[in-house]
């Protein structure tokens, strides 16, 4: 009797698939009572016997009648931050994989195998998702101040003076700066050396430098701005 019923159901599946008719049913993930009922042992055995023949109606029925498993397992992962719609969709992919790769000769229950496949599919997705989330660029902006300057991860994570890359960069910058300084007049160079302690000396204030050279502080300020502008121009030419 069950076999006859199943054969009729499979026949109905085939007709639906061939003529493209769609049912009016609405399926609710939240309430699995609206989903097709699970297969009983006899029904499952009958369908699994026919699974290796590649009958699409058999495959479709096995997938559809195990969808409650997908919902049940997906809901266990609701606290992972992944949308339940995505979880159910991923679980459905896992179920399709399970039915397509199930080997009835191994004598394990389809529900057991499918549960593992569905759970594994979701876990693999979560692992992959977490991996992508944990890969962050050193130049990832963490925050922005009122002036629009970005605070980068590298600003807060660097080692002491960023021993590797920054050291090389600094060496190159220093070399370029030295060449640029050679293009200044002797007085201009002296001002820069005193102000910024370029020859290993102490950094002096504009007032100190002004006193040493016997000129006013405002003149030093103007000169400094002009020299820096010129240095920047020389710098850019070389970079």
């Amino acid at each position: 009797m069950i076999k006859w019923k199943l054969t009729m159901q499979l026949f109905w599946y085939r007709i639906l698939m061939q003529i493209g008719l769609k049912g009016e049913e609405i399926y609710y993930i939240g309430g699995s009572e609206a989903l097709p009922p699970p297969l009983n042992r006899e029904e499952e055995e009958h369908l699994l016997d026919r699974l290796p023949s590649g009958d699409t109606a058999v495959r479709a029925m096995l997938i559809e009648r195990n969808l409650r498993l997908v919902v049940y397992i997906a809901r266990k992962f609701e606290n992972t931050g992944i949308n339940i719609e995505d979880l159910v969709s991923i679980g459905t992919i896992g179920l399709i994989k399970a039915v397509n790769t199930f080997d009835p000769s191994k004598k394990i229950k389809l529900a057991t195998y499918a549960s593992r496949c569905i759970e594994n599919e979701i876990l693999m997705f979560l692992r992959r998702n977490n991996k992508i989330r944990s890969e962050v660029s050193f130049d990832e902006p963490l925050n922005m101040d009122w002036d629009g300057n970005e605070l980068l991860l590298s600003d807060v994570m660097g080692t002491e003076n960023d021993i590797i890359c920054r050291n090389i960069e600094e060496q190159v910058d220093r070399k370029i700066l030295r060449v640029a300084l050679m293009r200044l007049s002797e007085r201009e160079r002296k001002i820069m050396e005193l102000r910024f302690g370029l020859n290993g000396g102490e950094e002096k204030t504009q007032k100190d430098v002004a006193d040493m050279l016997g000129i006013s502080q405002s003149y030093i300020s103007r000169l400094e701005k002009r020299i820096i502008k010129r240095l920047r121009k020389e710098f850019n030419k070389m970079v």
Partner: protein
Amino acid sequence: MQNNITDQIRCIVCEKECQEGITVLAEFICRDCEAEIVNTDVKDKKYAYFVLQMKNIWTQDISDQFS
């Protein structure tokens, strides 16, 4: 009942008209897409697309169910 009486049915994954495939919850998945889904790993670029398209099987907006 939605009548679409032709030999070709629209696949919910590739959205093309196809002849052969499976019907799950009244939605059609063509044979090529089914095979591709089975052979696609979560690491593959196309996986996200399958996750998105497979949501079409579940016709009810499930977010309402959990809110």
